[in-house]
């Protein structure tokens, strides 16, 4: 079980490959920034009426105020300024906005997960629910909820429900689905013999559920949760787009695009990515802990 960890920078380790990919992406990105911003810069340099060289062009494409594609260091600087150099409680802080997004995401995620688990338990135990509920669950996801999310938020706003709740509802709507589907499969995963064993003990349905179905379903639950938290975050951010000034990563994205602040947009995007990664890794960590406690290999 306990294999020796490979060295920090050895080719077998995780760190070196990841760093290589990051380096490649950054190089590519700088290249793209030149390509995409070239035209604007060239026009401006021409307008100055002085001769200019290729190095002027490159330097300028990497330091524009409102570039088409900002260079990595511009995004990094903006990210640093809006996280480390302002108080987290300030409206100019990305951490403040990430907190708003994270709380709506988590609330939606928790309730969506509960809903998914309750639905799956019902579907597994009640035959008529299996027949009647499953088509509705699937149909629910054919509604392009992300497309109409801003509308939903506006509608909620009109009836006086604002802030966290409308966003959390969108998240919940998105994330109960993978949980329900995964849990139905997980709760049904015990094989016939394992179920027969319970029958020979005359175990109650309640005991079969808690001592057999639930533990057998946990690996399924965790893979569903990772999907669920990721789309829950997306749902929240989309739900924040129409709220404008009231905060959240989505609001940051919107105001950035409103004012052509691409650097701000990109740093908000990175914040969203980091937030998503942190959430997925948190679930993976809980998964590892609980599966290890259950004798995982």
């Amino acid at each position, binding site marked *: 079980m306990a294999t020796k960890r490979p060295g920090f920078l050895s080719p077998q380790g995780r760190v070196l490959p990841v760093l290589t990919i990051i380096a490649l992406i950054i190089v590519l990105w700088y290249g793209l920034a030149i390509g995409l911003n070239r035209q604007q810069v060239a026009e401006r340099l021409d307008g100055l009426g002085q001769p200019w060289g290729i190095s002027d062009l490159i330097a300028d494409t990497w330091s524009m105020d409102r570039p088409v594609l900002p260079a990595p260091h511009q995004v990094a600087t903006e990210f640093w300024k809006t996280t480390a150099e302002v108080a987290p409680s300030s409206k100019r802080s990305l951490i403040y906005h990430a907190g708003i997004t994270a709380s709506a995401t988590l609330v939606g995620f928790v309730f969506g997960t509960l809903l998914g688990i309750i639905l799956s338990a019902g579907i597994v135990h009640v035959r008529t629910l299996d027949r009647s509920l499953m088509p509705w669950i699937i149909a629910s996801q054919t509604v392009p909820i992300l497309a109409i999310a801003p509308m939903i938020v506006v509608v909620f706003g009109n009836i006086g429900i604002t802030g966290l709740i409308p966003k959390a509802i969108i998240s919940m709507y998105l994330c109960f689905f993978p949980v329900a589907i995964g849990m139905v499969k997980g709760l049904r995963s015990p*094989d016939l*013999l*394992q179920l*027969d*064993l*319970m*029958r*020979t*003990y*005359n*175990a109650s349905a309640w*005991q079969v559920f808690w*001592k*057999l179905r639930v*533990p*057998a379903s*946990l690996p399924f639950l965790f893979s569903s949760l990772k999907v669920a938290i990721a789309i829950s975050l997306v749902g929240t951010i989309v739900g924040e787009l129409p709220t404008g000034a009231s905060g959240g990563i989505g609001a940051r994205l919107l105001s950035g695009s409103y004012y052509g602040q691409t650097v701000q947009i990109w740093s908000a995007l990175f914040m969203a990515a980091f937030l998503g990664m942190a959430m997925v890794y948190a679930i993976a960590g809980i998964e590892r802990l609980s599966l290890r406690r*259950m*004798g995982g*290999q």
Partner: protein
Amino acid sequence: MQSPRPDHGGLLVPGDESIIDIRNLGLTFQTADTPVYALSDINLQIGAGEFVSFIGPSGCGKTTLMRIIADLEQPTAGAVKVNGLTPREARLQRSYGYVFQAPALYAWRNVLRNVTLPHEIMGTGRSEAERKARNYLDLVGLKGFEKKYPWQLSGGMQQRVSIARALSFEPQLLLMDEPFGALDEITRDRMNEELLRIWAQTRKTVVFVTHSIDEAVLLSTRIVVMSARPGRIIDIIDSPLPPDRSLDTRETAAAQELAHRVRQGLRAGHSYDGH
């Protein structure tokens, strides 16, 4: 060939004290294409304290018969009584311990907690449950493996855990479906000895499935020889061997003779198969 004897002589009077009473039992599985005649016209009475082995070719319905006794399968003809009750009532009273052909352990429970599972379901106190579990794990030779998980054990060890699990809540009736099939010869001998000892001590009623003639001869007070298509009983043989046995009993003339008769029965059963 001898026909099944519903009013079997032996140690008991029919209808009296029979732990298991099977009459004209049949089971036909309705599969998609053709019906499978798994069992037909089974008649068998098993008395308290008997050790009855089913032996027969693969697919002759041994597992199916055990499952009917355990109320895991419903017969399509005939009737079964267990302790004078229907199999369902007997199951609801937790009258038997069942050792399945495969270990059926729960992967997320360690060995000890797999064995205490029936106790948890039945509401035995924790310390009492653990004491019994440790006791029977010891008995099947798994002392020191309590904290291991199923995937850390060999197939034979897993099967022994499942045997300990069935023994640990001390049912009066044991249904064992090829419990030692996955074990090596030596371990199997040891388990046979232990089973003989437990049986002699506790006078449980044991219904046992095996593919090994030697094992059937060594353990049984009666051997039920079955044949396939449809699954039926072709011979029921009373063992002439004395009740106190050891592995050496297999070498005695009486045992050899018994083995011979079982072998002949099996051979005769095979010749039914459409030849």
